[in-house]
């Protein structure tokens, strides 16, 4: 391990993953500073979820390495997994448990002290406004509630690095605000957040560093200000994605009746 990867929250080198003939992740290198709020943006199908799954030890890469908080994810998974919290997208939760039971369960899975887990669980349920629903089965939760309980599970063991896959997808505005506030407080105290999204405005508002992923590759990465240089992230992204032309002059018959 080199000096610089030990100081980084996340370091990725040469990550590849193919599904059949299709390359999902096609040689990704990425550095994430400790304490940064890092946004991984890209269109649907760009390989964001696959990248995050490989970095968090849920999906075995075809090639490449990743370090989280200085530990090799795939050769020292025990140490690496202790230092990360994960909110995957599209994977289920143990939804026949109630919200509180799910938190107690994940704390016990990590071998944490039961009393400490109970205290933290109640505090997390309060912060995420899930106290009322804490006895309800997760199967009966709304999408926003599921994201919040998933985030609570990810935070329970106080990890230095959080990986959140589309944490704001299909979340109502009030839940989204709660999630934003909790994440802002987390990074302000030195935690690192890596999150993926295809909503540029959100990334622009929250992140200090950004990487743009298109078709399995990182096409641009760096501090948000350097990357955008006065333009909006949306414009930068469209430029990188190679989409041109103004459609405002098309469909002239569409005049509002």
């Amino acid at each position: 391990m080199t000096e610089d990867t030990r100081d980084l929250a996340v370091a990725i080198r040469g990550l590849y993953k193919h599904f059949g003939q299709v390359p999902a992740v096609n040689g990704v290198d990425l550095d994430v500073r400790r304490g940064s709020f890092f946004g991984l943006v890209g269109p649907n199908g760009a390989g964001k979820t696959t990248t995050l799954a490989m970095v968090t030890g849920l999906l075995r890469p075809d090639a490449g390495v990743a370090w989280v908080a200085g530990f090799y994810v795939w050769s020292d998974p025990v140490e690496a997994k202790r230092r990360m919290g994960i909110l995957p997208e599209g994977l289920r939760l143990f939804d026949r448990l109630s919200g509180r039971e799910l938190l107690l369960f994940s704390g016990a899975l990590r071998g944490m002290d039961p009393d400490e887990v109970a205290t933290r669980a109640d505090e997390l349920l309060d912060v995420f406004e899930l106290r009322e629903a804490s006895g309800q089965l997760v199967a009966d939760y709304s999408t926003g509630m599921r994201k919040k309980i998933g985030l609570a599970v990810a935070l329970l063991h106080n990890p230095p690095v959080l990986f959140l896959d589309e944490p704001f997808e299909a979340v109502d505005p009030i839940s989204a605000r709660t999630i934003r506030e909790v994440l802002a407080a987390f990074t302000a105290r030195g935690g690192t957040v890596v999150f993926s999204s295809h909503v540029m405005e959100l990334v622009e508002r929250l992140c200090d560093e950004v990487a743009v992923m298109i078709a399995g590759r990182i096409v641009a990465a760096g501090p948000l200000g350097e990357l955008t240089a006065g333009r909006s992230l949306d414009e930068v992204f469209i430029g990188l994605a190679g989409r041109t032309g103004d459609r405002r002059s098309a469909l002239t018959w569409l005049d509002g009746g």
Partner: protein
Amino acid sequence: MTREAESLPTVAVRLRLALLRGALRPGPGSDGRTIGFLLGAIAGAVLSVGALLVLTGLRGDPAHAEDAATVLFTALFLGWVILPVLTFGSDDLLDPSRLVLLPLTGRELMTVLGIGGLVGVAPLVTGIATLGLVTGTAHGPTSALVALTSAALEVVMCVVASRASATALSRVLRSRRGRDLGVALAALVAVSVQLVNPVLLKTEERGGNALHSVASPLRWTPPGLLARAPGLPLAPALLSMAAVAAFIVALLWWWERNLRASSVRPDRSTGSRRRRAVLAPRLVARVLPPGRTGAVTAKDLRYLGRDPRRAVAFATSVLLPTVVVFVSPMSLGERPPAAGVFLVCGVAMLIGLSGMNRFGADGSATWLVLATQTHDSDQKRDLLGGDVATVLAGIPLLVLVGAVTSAIAGSVRDLPAALGVSVCLLLIVVGGSGLVAVLAPFPVPRTGNAFSTGAAGQGCLTSIYSLLCMAGAAVATLPLGLLVVPSFFVPALGYVLLLVGPAYGWVVGGLARRAAVKRWESRAPEILQLLATDRT
């Protein structure tokens, strides 16, 4: 541009045909659907033509033909009533709330749902099968006319009853608990068929007429009345059919009432129950292992009560052997076999196998297990935790079944030996089931038909492995047999078995678990990837 507005029945038929075409259209995941549809159609064709041929074949034997028709008509009717519970959500024309936004009156809504219900594979199958009444029981032109009318009434009654029950249940079925109930009910139907079957077979073997014993209490039900009408003189036949017509009108009235109510009442909410939920009740928590192992155990025990598939599978493991060995001979007035208490060995193996697709049952939620493997040998705790849950839930059941059956069979002195061997088998099969779970996991679909348990090939592989697992356990337990036979003569040896059996089983099951842990350590991400087909 404007066309003459089509009549409502035409629209209903076209909508139904469009839905059928849509279900068969190629697209992601459509192969399974198309194959399922074709298999269903083939099965329907075989069943309906089979029923038609059987009834036609019974032509010379009016008593038998009438009994067969009664059973057939009742089975069709029950099938139609239960159908919505099983297929709710997969058939858009079953759920009145799908159409509630259209500007239709209650009567018009009933027309669309009812006429739509007359188009499709199921009504066709029903229609063909009921024609057997004409070919099998009609004698003379008047009787043939009665039979034809009866057959038509049967089809209409089936459709109306199924729509009415769907509407009555729609509020319940739209909630998660309702769907859980559907899954449990479907499994119970499948099991009860297996339970009834041996009893009927035995009846036949002993010269009884199983068909008649089933049919005679059904004669006065609406399907029974229809089935018997062609054999009656004209006046009583007309009276029977009039009674059924009145029944259909009553069903229609009930349906309309519920339809009106269902469009104004909200879905039944699945509200909260307990405020301070804990993973395991205090009493249970005391016997649980500490840490991760205990967490997995507690979760599995919770799921046993909350996941209908698991609850039913567990109940089946106990009921099936008990019924085959005990209830069915007793229902025929025979004494159960004296060594019948050893049926707990079969119960033990089936309970042990309940964890054979434990990761598939959890589906993609397994990611949390992977993400929290934060200590050395956490993988062992994952498997051990599940095994402990099965054993903790299984042993009390073995003791209960053993105590009851040995008391009935008058062989209480064999109980210790039987329990010793069965606990040994349970411990071995449980360990082996973990190995099956990591060697051949398969995804379990969350929605749709409760009978389908996933990709056919995968489930098959799992079955082969689980058979191997049971055979292996049986072979591994053979040495205990050296003690079982003498224990019939020296009862004290039974108590030796009660000690030796579990200890031996723990060791052998532990060997299987060790192999499973190795595989789980090396293949967990691949297993997760395989199961992540239930993406939301």
